[in-house]
């Protein structure tokens, strides 16, 4: 039991060390900008994680690269351009508005409009809802008395 505890403590220390290794003295301003940027950039190694979330070595390197560029006074757009130049639009979680991405941006709205159009046409063709005449009037009255209505 004590040995397991020791292993656990050692593992935790390793983890803490690994995290503190990334920057010796994190500057809160830089870190805040890094976080905002990195949360919108895709990690290319584990593709469904952002660079902010990923533990992949490449994500670690890219975070440091962004830190450096923030410290150099680069704007967010310049940093995003830097990433796109290397990894393509795929790094952006928010795809840019271009001819190739038109379907991506407009598609869902076009489908919604199409659905609404079909729905309207189908309901209009059917006409206004009429009272159900399949039950004779007398038996309906009987049913209502049976149900205790007056």
């Amino acid at each position, binding site marked *: 039991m004590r040995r397991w505890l020791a292993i656990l403590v050692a593992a935790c220390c390793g983890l803490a060390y690994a995290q503190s290794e990334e920057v010796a003295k994190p500057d809160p301003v830089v870190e805040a900008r890094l976080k905002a940027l990195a949360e919108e950039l895709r990690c*290319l*190694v584990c*593709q469904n994680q952002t660079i902010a979330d990923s533990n992949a*070595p*490449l994500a670690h*390197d*890219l975070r440091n*690269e962004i830190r450096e560029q923030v410290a150099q006074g680069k704007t967010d757009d310049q940093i995003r351009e830097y990433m*796109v*130049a*290397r*990894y*393509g639009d*795929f790094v952006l979680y928010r795809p840019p508005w271009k001819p190739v991405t038109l379907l991506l941006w407009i598609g869902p709205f076009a489908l919604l409009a199409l659905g609404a159009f079909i729905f309207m046409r189908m309901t209009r063709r059917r006409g206004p809802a009429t009272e159900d005449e399949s039950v004779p009037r007398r038996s309906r009255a009987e049913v209502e008395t049976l149900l205790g209505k007056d």
Partner: protein
Amino acid sequence: MKLRYILPLAAFFLLAVFLAVGLTRDPREIPSPFIGKPAPAFRVAELHEPARMIAPEDMKGKVWMLNVWASWCVSCRVEHPVLLDFARKNAVPIVGLDYKDQREDGLQWLQKLGNPYVASAFDEDGKIGIDYGVYGVPETFVIDKQGIIRYKQIGPVTPEALEAKILPLLKSLGA
């Protein structure tokens, strides 16, 4: 009236076709923005001779390949015999880029498994890798005589990829 039944069926088939095409694609293969662009410059120490600096400009006028590898990379082992075989044919020079590696480990790896490279750039901190948009080692770039990147192989160079894509491309580039 008939259209009412045909339309949903058509929509279904359209969706099925989209999904089927999606299945045949490898999501790990991201089209490189570098195709048709000049190979990013670097100037870095050679792996075997740290005093010697190597740069892509040195290869101007030649068709060449830049192969990103590392001693810690498992799939590089799969690729290695293919590269050795290719290097023996002397078709085009292969320059290695030892990515985020230890010099000792890299040297040992080449000594043990053989060295297909005319030279290996030693990218210790992975900066050159970032400049080339490397995200999954091994990766291989085919670079033409003007220094323009023409093709990028993501993952190991397989005999099939060599036959189907790389060799015809090299021929068309006048290698």
